[in-house]
Structures are given as structure tokens and as C-alpha cells.
């Protein structure tokens, strides 16, 4: 099965940062767990198996956040202090792209942060602001997912994926051709 190339953890302990998550379907055609298991990969010594997420996390370390995907589905996710939000999204089958693999060279991991938690994030560095300038539908609460690292303070944070396609209807309706 497809093997993403491994990159070393971003100084976050024992983690495999996936090069880019597979885009996963909402339509239920595929077995989500099956795909996550396929993604538990074999490409380096610091492999972090998705199955281990729950057994390894100590309670004091757990940070619960919610992703709101492009269809408006709320997806609760259990992360840990120190987790990078982009890779956490990938591990949980969330549709958040990370084309440049967290190197501040694109804006594909653009998310909206809920008001309550937006101010709790450390200020964006200039390079993140520069890349955010390129993000479609930029809002005041926009941030790049790859720059958000979980802390206890971010418990309950909600991250919304921007609806970026013009024909995207919340109820899945597809417009009839002219």
C-alpha cells in the first residue's frame, strides 16, 4: 500500500509525521479504521502507530479539540500536549492538506480558530503571516494548522476547515448544469 515518505518528528518526541495525509471520503465508501491502519507505516525508527494513540496518552497530557470539516461535520479528536495540529488531523482522517509539510511554504493547512481559543495561541511569526496572506477567504481568526501546537490551554478548541470550493453546498447538493 502507499507509503508516505517519513519525516523526522518536529522535535515532538516519538512521532511519525506523515508527509501528507490521504484525502479521506465522507461518503463512507471506505473503512476509516482500515485506512488509518494502512497509514500506520513502516518507514523509520520513530513510527508512531495510530492504534497506540489512546493507550499511550496519559490523562494529564490529553487535549480534546474539535475539527469542523468542510461539510460542517463536527469531529472530536483526542490529542496530547505537544501535538502538531496538522499531523493530528491526518492521524484522525481529517481532510486538512499540508502540501509543504509544515515548512511555511504554502497555505493549504489554513484553518479558522474559534474566538475563545484564538487569543490563547502564540502570535504568528512573520513567515506564517506572509503565507496566510495567500490563503483564500482569509479571516481575522485564520491560522495555519501546521503552526498550532497543542497545550492544555487549548482544551476545547474548535478548528474549522474553510469551505473553499464555489460549488460546495453544505447539504451535499450538486448544482444542475446550465
Amino acid at each position, binding site marked *: 500500500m*502507499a*507509503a*508516505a*515518505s517519513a519525516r523526522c518528528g518536529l522535535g515532538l518526541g516519538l512521532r511519525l509525521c506523515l*508527509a*501528507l495525509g*490521504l*484525502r*479521506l*471520503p465522507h*461518503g463512507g*465508501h*471506505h473503512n476509516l479504521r482500515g485506512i488509518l491502519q494502512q497509514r500506520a507505516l513502516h518507514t523509520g525508527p520513530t513510527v508512531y502507530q495510530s492504534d497506540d494513540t489512546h493507550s499511550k496518552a496519559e490523562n494529564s497530557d490529553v487535549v480534546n479539540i474539535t475539527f469542523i470539516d468542510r461539510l460542517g461535520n463536527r469531529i472530536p479528536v483526542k490529542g496530547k500536549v505537544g501535538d502538531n495540529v496538522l499531523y493530528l488531523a491526518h492521524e484522525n482522517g481529517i481532510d486538512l*492538506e499540508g*502540501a*509543504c*509539510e509544515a*515548512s*511555511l*511554504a*504554502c*497555505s*493549504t493547512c*489554513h484553518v479558522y480558530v474559534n474566538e475563545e481559543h484564538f487569543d490563547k495561541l502564540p502570535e504568528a511569526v*512573520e*513567515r506564517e*503571516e*506572509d*503565507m496566510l*496572506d*495567500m*490563503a*483564500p477567504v*482569509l479571516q481575522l481568526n485564520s491560522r495555519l494548522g501546521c503552526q498550532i501546537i497543542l497545550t492544555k490551554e487549548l482544551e476545547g478548541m474548535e478548528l474549522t476547515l474553510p469551505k*473553499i*470550493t*464555489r*460549488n*460546495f453546498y453544505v447539504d451535499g447538493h*450538486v*448544482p*444542475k*448544469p*446550465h
Partner: protein
Amino acid sequence: MVPEYYESSVVDIYEKLPVPFGLVRFGVAPDHPEVKNVINAFTQTAHHDRCSFYGNVTVGKDVSIEELKQAYHALVLTYGAETNRTLDIPGKNLLGVYSARMFVGWYNGLPENKDLNPELSSETAVILGHGNVALDVARILLSPIDVLKKTDIAGHALEAIATSKVKRVLLVGRRGPLQVAFTIKELREMINLPDTRPLLNPSDFMGLKQAVKDLPRPRKRLTELMIKTALEKSSGKEVERQAAATKEWGLQFLRSPLEIIPSNDGKRVAGIRLSVNKMEGLGESAKFVQTGDVEDLECGLVLSSIGYKSYPIDPSVPFDHRLGIIPNNLGRVLHASGLYCSGWVKRGPTGVIVTTMHDGFETAETVLGDVRSGLLDVSASKGGSKVIGALLKQRGIRPVTFPEWEKIDNVEVARGEQAGKPREKLLDVQQMIEVASQ
């Protein structure tokens, strides 16, 4: 995207060159390797069992659109913009005048530009255009060799730039600072380029501080950076750095090219004559108007970076020659059935990875929506790559598969290692096919 959303779909990719990735390999500058990380995502998609890549196949020549339509339920045209808008002024054919597109192809190892052999023997280069491609070209012309030699820049370009005499690069645009098309990351890189000093004319920025306040964030931050660079007094350290710099680059505004001035022997560029413009109107609808005054700039290299352009691929595919795109609605080609398009040939030749990515998703959603609604009839069985493969074989065309690209990839990386570079690109299509066939 499509293989994951639709259980039984098969996606075949046909590409003219033996190697994949298009502009990510041939457009993104060599000193921007992080932007190329997206290759990992593309590779993962290509490894999907229902996705196949067939390189070295030119659609429109080796196989027709009609033949592809017979073999597939849907065709998605994503062939981008392979030519450029042309500079139509006297002197455009003098030695030393090139399109930025060809220059970029040259330093990025695009086979068709490997023999460009650009003139780098004069001190001043003029780039026409104020977009990111213009900045990329300026930066590559002025970057320290020690930086370039560790990138995947094409070998011949590295050698040529190492002996280049170019010390000054002027980016000339016909409109004003508020109309620049480049983005802040690239501008910042230029301002911080080692051993260079920026030449921004303060008078170009007078009175802009007020105008900037109400602009949308990206335009505001970009303009503020230019104003700061042009008007603010530098720190002692910066003054020293600039004084010690051996190279310089500048932005010139409100100048349009009228004529390229030949050397005494009439063969090469000696300068460029520019019309002095002024802006009329405000904001988005501001236009430039020639004042009648002219100015000459001495230079030995002129690169026109005034936009890319798409070609029509086949007479049977609708094409809007004015806009240079395939007429479409959200990626569904108008007045055609089973045809879709995505990327620059769909929207026009501007935008970065994030824009083209979202655009690709939009077209994919349109295709899937059409399958669901029945607009795209997938009931008949189609021959796909078996049929096309047989046609190509008959015609003596040898497609290069993804695993074969990976052999080329390995050779390039191995050669690069010897040279201290991420890869040493193969520059010749025949050579690529030889490696693929090993």
C-alpha cells in the same frame, strides 16, 4: 482525490514529458525546496493501485482527444500554460532578449530550454514584469553561487551563473506600486538577499502611506513592506551591509517597453527605451496611460515576464482565445461532453499551489457530481489504458510509467549526492527514456 471517493474509479495520467510533476519540478525555483515537498503527496497518489502515470505521451500528437474520449468515461484537461504572452516591440529578436519562461525552464532543466545559452556578459539586466516569476529570475541571477550550488538547479545554469557578469537587475513594470503582482514572501527574500542592495525610488512611494490603510490585508502588508524599504532610514548595520554589497536590484514603476535598442553591430541588446506612464483612476480599475515622455535604460539582457499563455490542445476542444482558457463551468467544459478541465487552462495562468489545489478539488467534485447525477454516463464499459496502450505501441510511442520515473529519480538523486545537490536533473528526453528502460 477521485480514487478515494469513488470505489471503482481508475485514473490514468498522460503527460508529454517522461517525468511527472510539471511546474513543481520545472517552475518552482531551485532555492525553494520546501515548496516542492508537495511531490510527496503527488507520489502517494500515483502509488494508488487505481492510478497510473504514462509519461512521454503527447496528447494531440501521439494520441488524439477523440481516441481518449472513446477509451475513457471522462477526460480532465490539466495541461496548463506552456507558452507566454509575447513582447511585440522592435528589437525583440536581438541577442540577449528572452522570455522569463524560457529562462526559468533553462535553470530548472526543462529539456526544451537546455540550449538557451543566455547572454550573461553585461552588468545590467532588465526584467519586464512585477510578478513572482520576475522576482524568481532576479533572485537566481543575483544569488551567491555558494547558495545555488547546493540546490537542484540545472548543471549548465550553475556553471553559466558562476561566470555571469550581471550585477544589477531592474524589474520594470508599466503600473504603480499598488498594482504589483508579486507576493510578500518573495519580496522579503529579495530584500534580504545576501550581498545585494535594494534600489527603490522614494518618490514612487510618496503619499502611499495613507492609501494603504484601507487596503485588504495582503495588499496592505505588501505595500507597507515596499514603503518601509524605500523610505525608512536603515539601521547602522543595514547601511553597512548595503554599502558593502556588490550587487543591486531595483523596482521601476510606470514604465512600458517601446523598443529594444541594438548594439552598434546591430546584433545584441544594448538598452531598452521605455514610455513614462501615469496612473489614472483608483483601486482595481486604475489604468496606466502613456505620458509621451520616454526614458532609456542601458542593459545587455532583457527578460520579459509578462504572463503565461495556454494553447488549444485539439480543434475538437473549445478554446477561448481572448482569455486563453477552455470555456467551462466549475471545471465542466462547455459545449462538450465528458470533458473537464482544471488548473491554469481552466482559470488562467496565475495562482500558487493552494489555489490550483483547491481548483483541482473543485473539478473533481464536478466530475463526481456529474457521475452521481447521471450527467456523466458511466454505464458503458471503456477500454482505458489497454486500448490507448495498444494504439501507442502501434505508433512506436514508449510510455514511461511511474516506477520507471522512479528509476530516473534515483539516478538524479545519486548524481546529485556526488555534487552536493538534492539531485542532478537529467536534461535530455532520450537520456530519461534510456534510464527508464534499464
